[in-house]
């Protein structure tokens, strides 16, 4: 069933993203939620305008009320479950073991990253990413050891959301996804495409038959491990932001959009 719906979801999200781009250009001031670009220049001083020109990114959050509700749910889920699991993971497993886990899950994400680099015409980064994958999958024993990283083979992670951004798609509207956290219509589209081209996720294109390449149980275990690994990496940062912020939702939203802009520009 998922196989049938998946391409449709991807298609609809893509349309939504591009529709939103047009919508954004014509109706920025009509959005019900926050639209930072629609603020009047708050000062005539040249400095502020010049700084805005090099620094300010656009945030469109017309679904803010709804997003905040999802955010409250996500935040509670995180505080009472995910953070607890991530802390236990950090406390129970020594760093070298956690590094092995991180190497393994990162390595599995590299083919899709290399593919997206190629789509963006970044051939050098694509080759570096794929070399990383090949070296770590072989000499690094299935990706458990980051041999390529130790040899200073550097690469930038790329995903399909970044590929869309590279070709000029703006972030679309900001959305908070239950359990997954901050995203945008562009990045959610990207996520759907990345999942559909990743053979590890499931055999969406039914290559060589209809069977999934990896059983569902293993895929769920891998997804859970990836989430716990990522949450563990963010434990200190999120704790800091949660403690310091006057509006955690707004802080996270701004940080997410800025980070994505930086990732697309790299």
């Amino acid at each position, binding site marked *: 069933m998922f196989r049938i719906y998946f391409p449709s979801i991807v298609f609809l999200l893509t349309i939504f993203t591009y529709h939103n781009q047009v919508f954004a250009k014509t109706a920025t001031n009509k959005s019900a939620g926050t639209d930072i670009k629609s603020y*009047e220049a*708050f000062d005539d001083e040249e400095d502020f305008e010049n700084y805005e020109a090099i620094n300010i990114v656009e945030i469109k959050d017309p679904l803010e009320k709804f997003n905040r509700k999802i955010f409250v749910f996500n935040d509670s889920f995180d505080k009472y479950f995910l953070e607890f699991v991530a802390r236990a993971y950090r406390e129970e497993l020594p760093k070298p073991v956690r590094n092995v886990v991180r190497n393994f899950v990162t390595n599995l994400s590299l083919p899709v990253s290399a593919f997206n680099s190629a789509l963006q015409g970044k051939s050098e980064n694509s080759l570096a990413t794929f070399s990383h994958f090949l070296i770590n999958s072989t000499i690094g024993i299935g990706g458990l050891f980051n041999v390529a990283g130790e040899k200073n083979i550097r690469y930038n992670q790329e995903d399909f959301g970044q590929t869309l951004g590279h070709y000029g798609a703006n972030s679309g509207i900001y959305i908070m996804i239950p359990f997954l956290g901050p995203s945008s219509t562009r990045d959610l589209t990207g996520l759907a495409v990345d999942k559909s081209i990743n053979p590890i996720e499931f055999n969406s294109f039914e290559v060589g038959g209809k069977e999934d390449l990896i059983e569902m149980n293993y895929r769920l275990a891998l997804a859970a491990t990836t989430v716990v690994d990522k949450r563990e990496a963010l434990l200190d940062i999120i704790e800091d932001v949660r403690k310091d912020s006057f509006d955690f939702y707004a*802080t996270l939203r701004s940080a997410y959009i800025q980070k994505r802009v930086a990732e697309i520009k790299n």
Partner: protein
Amino acid sequence: MKNILLGIVFIFFTSSALAQDNTKLDQVKVFINEIGSQIIKSADDKKLSVAQRKAKIISVIDESIDADWIARFVLGKNYRTMSEEHKAAFTKLYRDFMINTYGPKFQSYNGKRFDVTDVTEQNGFYIAKAEFLPKDSNAAILVSFRVKERANKLVILDFIAEGISLIETQRSEFNSAISQKGVDKFLEELKNRIEKLKTQKTN
């Protein structure tokens, strides 16, 4: 002959302007390197007590940032609508908030190395990219600073880590907080937060 002379004069002025630009970029590099080194040195100075280390880092931050400019920037659209009293109160509180929030944070930044790798100029701002290598890691953290010259003194206006600008994030956060809570409640919260941070500082 006249043309050759004009050419020489042109080359002289252009090269002297370029040299001045390069000198300025070098000055920014030295300025940021100095601040980074001072913070790392202070954070690791075993001769100082915890409180002294914090005080030293706070003083480095206080002297190197233009808190008034940043305060005005982070107010965003609210700057136009806030009363003069509120603006003045916020500007004063913001400086305290910055130094008391980030002073203690930088105190834990034990680093092996801090190097400015590149300085460029864009729209009248200097952008200094730097690498910070923590003691317990081999992976350098990439950060950048936005610097401006004011009254012949270089000042930091922004700090960017992982592509995330500190002042832009604060602008988004403060504007959202003000629109939800109102200016008075926000200023009160800010004041309470600073008091709390100061108490933590002396512990």
